[in-house]
Each structure stands twice: as structure tokens, then as C-alpha cells.
């Protein structure tokens, strides 16, 4: 599986390739070509955003699956275990909403929770082909995703 670092490097390589050509077209006054490369860069932003978010999504699913299983196995008191058992059934049926999984790891009022909520919303817009997608500052997003990927755990 490609690591976040590798994905980030690939993104930058393509971004700079297109950006160079956009710049060259601008210096020559080739407006249409400039616009064309600008659009390619936007599409590349969206593609890599989606690509990287799915990696993060996988990580969050893995961690929360493990958390739920551990809680079910290690909690002997039924009153404390019952909600985990309900979640475990949902886990087996793969019906836990992504942001509910995030809630198992981060408090809802935490900035990281809000950040993940905004990424998730954007992921859905791109994946389902909305008319507009907001510009993504990938250099910032990649740094945040790397941090999230490293720091998320169930302790």
C-alpha cells in the first residue's frame, strides 16, 4: 500500500508538472492552454484528496473495529458492555456511519473532529460529482492528513 509520504510526493510531482506548463502558457499569452492546465491542477487536487482520504478512512475503520472488538471482549459487566455489543453488530453489518466512528476516537467539539467532518463532507461532494467543489489547498491538507494518520488511536 502506498504510504502517505509517497502519495504526497506523487501529488507534488504532478502538481508541479502542470503548474510549470500553466506558467509557460501564461508567459506566452496562450490563455486557453493556461486555463486548461489550471483545470488539470484542480482535478489533480481532487483526485489526490480523495485518494488520501480513503487511506485515512481505512485507518479509522481499522482502529474503531479493533476498539469495538476489544471493548466487547474485555468488558465483563453487561451494563457497561451492552452499547459496545450493539456497535459490534453494526460493525459486522458494516452500517456504522463514518463520522460516528470518528466520534469514538475524538470528542465532537475537538478541532480535529471538525477538520475530519469538513474533509468527509468534501470527500462526498467529490465522490458524488457535485457541480462545484471548493478549491483544496493540498499542501496544507497533506500535512494535516499525515498528522491525523499518525495520531489517531483508541487510547
Amino acid at each position, binding site marked *: 500500500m502506498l504510504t502517505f509520504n509517497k502519495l504526497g510526493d506523487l501529488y*507534488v510531482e504532478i502538481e*508541479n*508538472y502542470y503548474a510549470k506548463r500553466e506558467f*509557460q502558457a501564461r508567459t506566452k499569452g496562450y490563455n486557453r492552454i493556461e486555463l486548461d492546465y489550471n483545470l488539470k491542477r484542480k482535478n489533480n487536487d481532487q483526485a489526490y484528496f480523495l485518494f488520501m482520504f480513503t487511506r485515512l478512512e481505512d485507518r479509522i475503520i481499522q482502529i474503531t473495529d479493533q476498539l469495538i472488538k476489544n471493548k466487547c471482549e474485555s468488558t465483563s459487566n453487561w451494563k457497561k458492555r451492552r452499547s459496545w455489543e450493539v456497535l459490534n453488530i453494526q460493525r459486522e453489518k458494516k452500517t456504522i456511519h463514518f463520522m460516528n466512528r470518528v466520534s469514538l476516537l475524538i470528542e465532537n467539539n475537538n478541532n480535529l473532529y471538525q477538520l475530519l467532518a469538513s474533509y468527509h463532507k468534501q470527500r462526498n461532494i467529490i465522490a458524488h460529482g457535485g*457541480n*462545484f467543489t471548493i*478549491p*483544496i*489547498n493540498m499542501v496544507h491538507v497533506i500535512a494535516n492528513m499525515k498528522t491525523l494518520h499518525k495520531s489517531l488511536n483508541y487510547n
Partner: protein
Amino acid sequence: MKNLNSIESVKIEGDIIDWKLRIQQLYKDIEKWISGSNFKYKKGPVQIMYEEQMYQNKLPITELDTLDIICDNIYILSLKPKGLWTLEGNGAIDLLHKNGNYTLIDISKPRHKPNWKIYKNIDEEPANFTKRTFLELLH
């Protein structure tokens, strides 16, 4: 509902005006930073701004200024606004150059004093965008 929509439209219009002023001020700063040097600035072709909030609130397309930095008739850098309502930040501007792109992101809260950071590389912390960091880009 109609009133709520018009309140939102007024807010969005205000955000657009604020965005244009922040861009203008940034360009003025840059023009000042390079005055007296071999570098010259030139207004580039205007850029169309039409983002989701404008579409949803039935606001018309508008135009944003771009700026080119030139030295001895050679283009060194082009500043092109990327978007106001961006994922991460309160507006972003592309800084295109012969080897690729740097990104300027205003990390301030909406309607606050701009706080521009320059992102040159994904492995580097962003730097404050100052005369010094700007001139370094040109050399």
C-alpha cells in the same frame, strides 16, 4: 426564508469585497517590496471568480486581478487567486513559477487582518509571507 437568503447574499457579497481588498493590499505590498530593484510588476489578465456560495446565492460572476513579476522581460512569478472559500484557509493564491507552484494561504479568520503563509513544500512548515520571504523566491 427570502429574507434569510438575502442576508446570506449580503454576507457573501461582503466576503467577496473583503477578498478583493486583501488581494489588492497584497499586490500593493509586493509592488512596494520590489520598487527600486530590477524586478518589475505587471497586471496580468483578470481571473473569473465564481464559487459555490456565489452560485447558491445567485450572485454574478466577478473578476479578480492577477499580478506578474518580470525581470529583463522574463517572467519570474505569477500570482493568481485560487479561491476564497477553500478547504483550509481563508483564501488562497497560486504563485506560479518556472519550476512549479507555491501556495499562499491566508490563515486568518474571515474578516480579520490577513495572515499570509507561504507553503513551498509539503515537508516544510509554512513561513510568514514577508518582504524577505518574497524576495527569496525571486532569486
